[in-house]
């Protein structure tokens, strides 16, 4: 960002306008999403059919609405947690899969499917438990390691824990019954919102809402936490404690949503980058901007996933493909640089 006050003011104005524009996009997309589906005809649901057809009304209110709201929450949470991880670890290539959260959730879900009864509640609880264990394991290992500063230790611990969980998941896939268990496992790994109900949405709100509130309210502290510990401390921050609170909020909200929706990749990695390009490097804008962008991205992907074909397209495939395409585009840009 420019040091000239006049230029900085103009940039902030532009950034604010973009924020409002994206917020408007989100609202319009939400409204449009309620009218997109397969019934009573593919793609567009005429509004009058919602009023006149009881089945259409039931499908919209009981299926589409909770699913759309969950898609929005998923995008918001993954983006917010990705932003937190990237700023806290000062590494632009980290997301929820980094601290053992997503690999832990995948392992927990696999364990429930292969070795337990495989019921949705069991899978979700197991996934959430192991996702949080991934975070705790990484933190515990980071405290015990004696190599570099805390950030580096946490990164290395996260890699090790993720690798352990990933290999465990591989073993479970190997043991899974190919007829009865492996398809369930595969679908969970690819992510999808087709089984979301109002009850599922209500279950995740008690964790997600406070976590997002913490991240939003502490977003300006992320600017300090993205600096070295000595610098942050000299500016009045308590880096260890604040970092822990933010990481816990990010990890727990991500764990709960991954447990419900399966693995949905690349959102937490790509959206913060796009948010920084649009809103600058100030976390006070990047966090809410990223939340809006993440909401929009996952909402659009889920609309395609449930509407385009007769069969559901796994959400993780769409987010990964689009995310990877954007990432490639960003890598190959001539003018590549991150604003500090």
């Amino acid at each position: 960002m420019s040091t000239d006050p006049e230029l900085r003011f103009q940039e902030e104005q532009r950034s604010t306008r973009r924020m409002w524009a994206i917020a408007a996009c989100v609202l319009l997309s939400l409204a449009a999403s309620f009218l997109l589906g397969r019934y009573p005809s593919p793609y567009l649901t005429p509004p009058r059919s919602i009023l006149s057809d009881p089945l259409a009304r039931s499908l919209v209110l009981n299926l589409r609405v909770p699913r759309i709201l969950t898609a929005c929450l998923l995008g918001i949470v993954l983006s917010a947690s990705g932003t937190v991880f990237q700023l806290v670890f000062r590494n632009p290539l980290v997301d929820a899969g980094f601290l053992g959260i997503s690999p832990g959730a995948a392992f927990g879900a696999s364990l429930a499917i292969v070795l337990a009864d495989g019921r949705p509640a069991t899978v979700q609880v197991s996934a959430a438990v192991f996702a949080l264990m991934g975070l705790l394991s990484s933190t515990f290992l980071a405290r015990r390691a004696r190599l570099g500063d805390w950030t580096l230790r946490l990164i290395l611990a996260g890699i090790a824990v993720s690798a352990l969980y990933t290999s465990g998941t591989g073993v479970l896939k190997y043991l899974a019954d190919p007829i009865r268990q492996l398809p369930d496992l595969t679908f969970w790994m690819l992510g999808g919102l087709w089984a979301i109900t109002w009850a599922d949405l209500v279950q995740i709100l008690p964790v997600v809402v406070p976590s997002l509130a913490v991240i939003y309210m502490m977003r300006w502290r992320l600017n300090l936490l993205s600096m070295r510990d000595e610098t942050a401390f000299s500016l009045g921050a308590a880096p260890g404690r604040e970092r822990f609170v933010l990481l816990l909020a990010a990890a727990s909200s991500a764990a709960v949503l991954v447990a419900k929706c399966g693995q949905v990749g690349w959102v937490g990695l790509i959206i913060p980058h796009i948010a920084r390009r649009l809103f600058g490097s100030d976390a006070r804008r990047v966090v809410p901007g990223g939340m809006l962008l993440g909401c929009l991205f996952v909402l659009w992907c889920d609309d395609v996933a449930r509407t385009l074909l007769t069969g559901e397209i796994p959400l993780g495939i769409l987010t990964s493909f689009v995310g990877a395409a954007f990432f490639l585009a960003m890598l190959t840009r001539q003018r590549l640089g991150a604003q500090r």
Partner: protein
Amino acid sequence: MSQRTVRAVPMLLLIVMGLLNTGCSPAGAAIPSSMQSPTSTTRPRQPTPNATPSPVQLPITVTDAAGQTVMLDEVPARLVVVGRGPYMGLHLLYMFPTAWIKLVGLEQKGSTADDFLPLVDPGWTQKTILATGPGVEQIAALKPDLVITKGIVPDTLSNALAEVNIPSLFLSPETPDQFYQDVINLGVVLGQPERAMQIIDYYQQRLDRIQQRLSGIPEDDKPDILLLQYTERGGSLAMNVPAKSWMQTILVQLAGGHPVWLESAAATAGWTVANLEQIALWNPDKILLVLTYDMNAHGIIAALRADPVWSQLRAVQNRELYAFPLDLYDWDSPGPRWILGVNWLATRLYPDRFADIDMSSEIYDFYGYFYEMDRATVNEHIMPLVHLDVH
């Protein structure tokens, strides 16, 4: 972001949508013409055996499901069964009584090696059970003359076995045509071609019976059928529809139904999730639910009938929501029991035309003829699991 990038992204999206719609087979190989998807505009295809097997001549030469030419100097005395879905090959193999003694080992997939064959074969405990994913050395230790596996493309295991001169025979009973061909191949390989023809005759007689009784029914008058695989994950909100080329789709057609997912479903090679909106859009005349034997069929059907959305579907309102019967193994999937599935389905789609068919008798005939199970054994182990009228 450059304009080129902005233009490229929608193109990339279109490409991936096209790829998803086209799909590809799991092994990446071209699907043989016998497996090409039936369409609703064609009449149900009756399977026809490609050749009448001649008396065994040595060396034995067959072309298996993977297109390999398998040459054997003599009738194999030691058999091992491995690979995906081993029960399909095993149960097919056991339709030839001499195979019971020749089978020396098999791969275990899942929690048990097999739930059915211990009831049939008194020598079952003598078989060597290999853990999941056996290697060449583990298989070679059993000194097999032939390894039987499932697939349409030679895999790394069969290639490795060939290096130590252990031949592999691929089976792929995914369609009735392929089932017949596998039966013929096994008959030739086991030196029992006449038994193979008896098996095929048994199946063909029943298919001919169905076709004769359904002849003259216009395609447009055939009921719309939706076959769904119920899973705990999807519950009442989303279920799986089978691939176009799969046995489940073919069974519906052979029984005189019109599979509603046929025209619009993507040509994937696996189950595809269909959400409740799509199910409501299809709104078929009859819905068949494929369950596993450990699921409570009555409870699931009752819950769906009471569901506020499901209760508005035509099939549910007309009490045409059925649990597809099964016993220890499915009646809808590839494996010898598909003939029971198609028979049952015909009696439910056209009860007036098949009122004389007693499915209980069909079950006794099937297990007695192919597996030498007497009625008492069938009554003890099979019939308690069969629910013919859960709807």
